Every structure is written in structure tokens, then in C-alpha cells.
């Protein structure tokens, strides 16, 4: 196991574990992401673009997970989540959201949010740093591709921003 993963795993805080477990729940995480999009972004066009980039990200990450089939570090343990390890879906979603706000004042918040989500995945022992690092380029590429398609095909009245 790499140093960063070991370091995150060594932090044993019950509150952190509770928050991590809560964020690990797909429904809670999806609801939180949707709330953040609707609170932080006022333009419907940009909201739609963010949602599309998240959908693209989820599709690509799911495909990569099912092709590479890397086992989770907690594989075999009772509490280990279902599915493969590389790349981390939670981290990829949080990074996609982060990059979607790169032109906004709120960006540092989304950056910290993405790093915190990534940290909780390491702290819970359901991912290693390699899974988090792999999620970052996938998230950026998913947002970049959505942005290009958006500029090409979105109706002009749908202001999508950067």
C-alpha cells in the first residue's frame, strides 16, 4: 500500500468515519451533488452542462471499472462496497464538479470538497491513492469533452458559460 493511502488510513476519527460512510452512500452523495449544483450555479444552461458532464463521467468511469476489474483494497471484508476499485467513482464525480466551477469564485470550496471526498474514500479503506489519481484526469477529460460538444450543439439561448 502506498504512503498516502497508509497515512489516510491511519487517521482514526469516528466523526470522519461517519461522514465518510454517509458520503459513501450513493443516494446521499447524488443528492448532495445535485444540491451543490443547484445552489452554486444559477444558470439553467450551465446546470444542464454540469449534469451532462457528470453523466458522461459516470459512463466512462463505469466502463473503465468493468474493463480493468481492479479489486478494492478491502475486497473480501464484510463491509466492503460492491464494485471495482479503479478509478474511484466518488472522486471522479467530485472532480468533475470541481472543474465545472473552475471559472467561479466558489472554486476553492469545490476543490476542497473534491479533496475531502477523495480523502474519505482512502480513510474508509475502500480505495487506494492510485484510484483517486486515476479519477482526476477522467473527470477533467469528461468535462472538457462535454464543454466542446456543448459549444457545438447547445442552443444559443442556453448560456452554459465556460
Amino acid at each position: 500500500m502506498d504512503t498516502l493511502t497508509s497515512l489516510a488510513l491511519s487517521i482514526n476519527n469516528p466523526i470522519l468515519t461517519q461522514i465518510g460512510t454517509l458520503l459513501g452512500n450513493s443516494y446521499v452523495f447524488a443528492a448532495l451533488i445535485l444540491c451543490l449544483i443547484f445552489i452554486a450555479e444559477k444558470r439553467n444552461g450551465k446546470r444542464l452542462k454540469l449534469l451532462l458532464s457528470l453523466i458522461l463521467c459516470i459512463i466512462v468511469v463505469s466502463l473503465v471499472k468493468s474493463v480493468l476489474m481492479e479489486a478494492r483494497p478491502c475486497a473480501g471484508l464484510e463491509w466492503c462496497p460492491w464494485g471495482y476499485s479503479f478509478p474511484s467513482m466518488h472522486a471522479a464525480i467530485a472532480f468533475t464538479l470541481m472543474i465545472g466551477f473552475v471559472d467561479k469564485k466558489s472554486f476553492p470550496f469545490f476543490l476542497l470538497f473534491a479533496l475531502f471526498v477523495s480523502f474519505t474514500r482512502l480513510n474508509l479503506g475502500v480505495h487506494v491513492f492510485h484510484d483517486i489519481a486515476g479519477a482526476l484526469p477522467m473527470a477533467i477529460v469528461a468535462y472538457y469533452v462535454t464543454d466542446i460538444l456543448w459549444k457545438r450543439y447547445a442552443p444559443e439561448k442556453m448560456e452554459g458559460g465556460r
Partner: protein
Amino acid sequence: MNKETNRQVFHVVVGIITLFFLAILGRGFMTAAVFSIIIIGTLLMNLRIRGARIFFVNWFERLFEREDAPLPGWGSAAYAIGVLIALTFLNDSAGIAAVIYILAFGDAISTIVGRMGRIKLPYNDKKTVEGSLALFFASLPAYMLIGPLIIPVAILAALAESLPVLEDNLTVPIVCTAALLVL
């Protein structure tokens, strides 16, 4: 030197530094380092978009970044993302080094030769046949890293670089990494 030549020299120098540290410190360290660089880079990008003037970032943009970049520092960010894709998707250091080599040397030589080329590609009038051939031949020394696999990888890299979609700093490492995973 003009801006495009600066960019390509920067490509090669960063590529050499990355390969050096990959050989000395290994894949794990390089993954963490490139990940951190991208995170810090996005923060600097955000500050620049919001109008902040950061001395070394402005100097860097003036020297190395394209005028038509979608975001400040996008070219360098794409390069780092490309390197991180190779570092995280490939397990074998020789394969990672080959992708970085093609990205650093192949792409740079292709741009320099391509700008002097005369025969335009039928599907992309901004690129030339000479540029694509230069990328192919410049990638061949990576034979020392991945053996005969370099032939299909270099062909695919040349094709990816010539496409009029996305940033070539992204398409080249994505295609090379995918090829090395499949082949």
C-alpha cells in the same frame, strides 16, 4: 524563438525531467507529484480567470501558452493530465515511459516538422502529412522501452495527433495508453 518553438522546447524539457524522476523515484511518487501539480494548476487557473496577476504564471503564459487556449494554462494542464493518464492506467514503467517519450519528443518534433510541411491532411487542414510522419519516426526510439509494440502505438499516436478533435496533448497519451492496455 517564437512561441510555438518555446512550447515544443518546453514539451521536451518537461518530458526529460518527468522521465528522469520516473526512473529515479518510481511510479508512485510521480503519480502523487503530477496529481498535486494538476490540483495546484487548477487553483492558479481559477485565480487567472478571475483576473489575478501572478508573476510567474503570467510569464509562463506569455512564453509557452497558445493565444486560442480555452483556459489560461490549458496546454500545460492537458500535458500533465496526459502524463497522469499514463501513470495511473499502465502498470509497467516501460510503457509509461514510452507514452511520456511519445508525448514529449514525438509531438514536439511533429509540430516543428509539420509547420514546414506542404502536404495538408485531407481531414485536417491545420496538420500536414510530414508532421504525422515525423511523429511516427520520432516515436520509434521508444522501441528500447516497449519493443516491437512501438510500431502500432506510433501509428495510432500519429493518427491521434492529426485528428481535428480535442487537444493533442490529451489524444496522444489517451490513444497510446489504450493501445498499450489492449495490445
